[in-house]
């Protein structure tokens, strides 16, 4: 048992995976948080939707620290936002990584604790993975190099993705619309979430009948895939099927709903499940595509 534990947690080299993940993940976060610039004062300033004085009244604020509760001026807010974006760029380029990962985590937590209402899926995933990146970079630093911290963190990063899908799948099993097979109908018809107005597709009852079956099958498929992801992703035989299906599902989510950055963050975490050889193939394939479009 001790041997198994040691082998699983302390003897894996996930550096290549984590370095590539860090690069892509930080650029995705940069895009996502750059978009926040347009609503920065609305979401986080004292003249916006949540005044500092109101925070205890709207949520349980014990242990939730944000430096933005003390730096309430608009200029300091913009400076802090700039610092956060800069730290993500440094991390993406692999410069001063352990220090910048600490800065990025500190800034990120400060923003989400300043207004927890403005947080959605991509932010919550970013919280966990910035935390792991921070520990990983510390583990890679000279002082801690002798402890197998980075190996353990790599495993935690993999397990985290399994926890996300397991809970997401089990939660769906509690929902009547996922059992009825019309969950995707409600998601697509919700104009607040859906990227396009899909009502023309279902204009007459004939078309609705025709689309009922694909919608039901897709709804069941999503639940099955999420529930089985945490188990099958560890199997060599099933790994590519489960990751490939996930990439397709998230691509569809990114196209059909207003959450392209969320979809990108989730798929980016799949890199953590590729071994060194597969990772090499992936980067070669990616470079080929980029060169075809003359981007690299």
């Amino acid at each position: 048992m001790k041997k198994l534990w040691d082998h699983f947690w302390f003897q894996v080299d996930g550096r290549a995976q984590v370095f590539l993940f860090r690069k892509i993940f930080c650029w995705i976060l940069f895009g996502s948080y750059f978009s926040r610039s347009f609503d920065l004062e609305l979401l986080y300033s004292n003249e916006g939707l949540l005044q500092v004085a109101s925070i205890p009244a709207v949520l349980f604020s014990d242990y939730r620290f944000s430096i933005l509760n003390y730096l309430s001026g608009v200029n300091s807010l913009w400076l802090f936002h700039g610092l956060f974006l800069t730290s993500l760029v440094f991390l993406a380029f692999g410069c001063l990584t352990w220090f910048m990962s600490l800065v990025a985590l500190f800034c990120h937590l400060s923003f989400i604790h300043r207004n927890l209402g403005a947080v959605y899926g991509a932010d919550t995933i970013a919280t966990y993975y910035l935390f792991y990146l921070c520990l990983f970079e510390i583990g890679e630093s000279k002082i801690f190099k002798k402890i197998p911290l980075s190996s353990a963190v790599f495993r935690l990063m993999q397990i985290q993705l399994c926890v996300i899908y397991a809970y997401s799948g089990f939660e769906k099993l509690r929902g009547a619309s996922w059992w009825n097979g019309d969950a995707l109908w409600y998601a697509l018809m919700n104009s607040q979430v859906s990227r396009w107005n899909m009502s023309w597709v279902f204009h007459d009852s004939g078309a609705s009948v025709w689309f009922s079956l694909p919608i039901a099958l897709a709804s069941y498929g999503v639940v099955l895939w999420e529930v089985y992801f945490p188990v099958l992703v560890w199997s060599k035989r099933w790994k590519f099927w489960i990751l490939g299906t996930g990439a397709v599902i998230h691509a569809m989510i990114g196209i059909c709903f207003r959450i392209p950055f969320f979809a990108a963050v989730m798929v980016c975490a799949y890199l953590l499940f590729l071994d060194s050889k597969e990772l090499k193939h992936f980067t070669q394939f990616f470079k080929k595509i980029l060169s075809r479009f003359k981007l690299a």
Partner: protein
Amino acid sequence: MAKKESPKYRILKLGLSAGILFHLVAIAYSPNSETELGTFLNPLFQSYLHFFEFTTSWSFFAPDPGSFLVYFEWELLGKQGEQLELGQFPDLVAESAGDSNFLLKQEQDMRKLSVSRFMAAYDARAEKMLIPYLCFSSSRQGTSSFHHQGTPSLRQGAPLLEAVDSVRLWKVIELIPPLKEIALGHRKIEDARGRERHWITHAYCKDLEL
């Protein structure tokens, strides 16, 4: 032959294993912490979970994606009770017009939608967040007019709105018809959605502590 580990290394690994176990238990139980198990574990883990915000339930589009749309309608009233402006938050359709496919705009919309869902969970939240914002941005920002049917921009308040005396607030829920009813021809997609307007409050700006 495997290299023998030093006692110091073994102690460090033991400490690391304890840390891994602590974190694993935390991330595994926290999404389901409103349970008997949670009541037992919360005192031990709460500070850790809240400090790093490991409190999410991972319920993406779950247990149901939501068979309704939710938003807030507000009305700004003058000193004589006259209506100065009507609006809604978030006004995603109007704000997205023309550039709804633009990546960054979608991300912006999603955050506003998250705020509106956060407020919709409790009326008191909406009152605490939206009323000061509507009063505050109207009384302190004074450069141009509010968008009709939109979010008052921080940079585009209105001199007119210095006259705002009070705000009325409603939560609006629009129900999406079930697919089965459309498929069976009982309803048509273009039929008006079921719309419920819930009264939240009528608050006076002068009563707020800004």
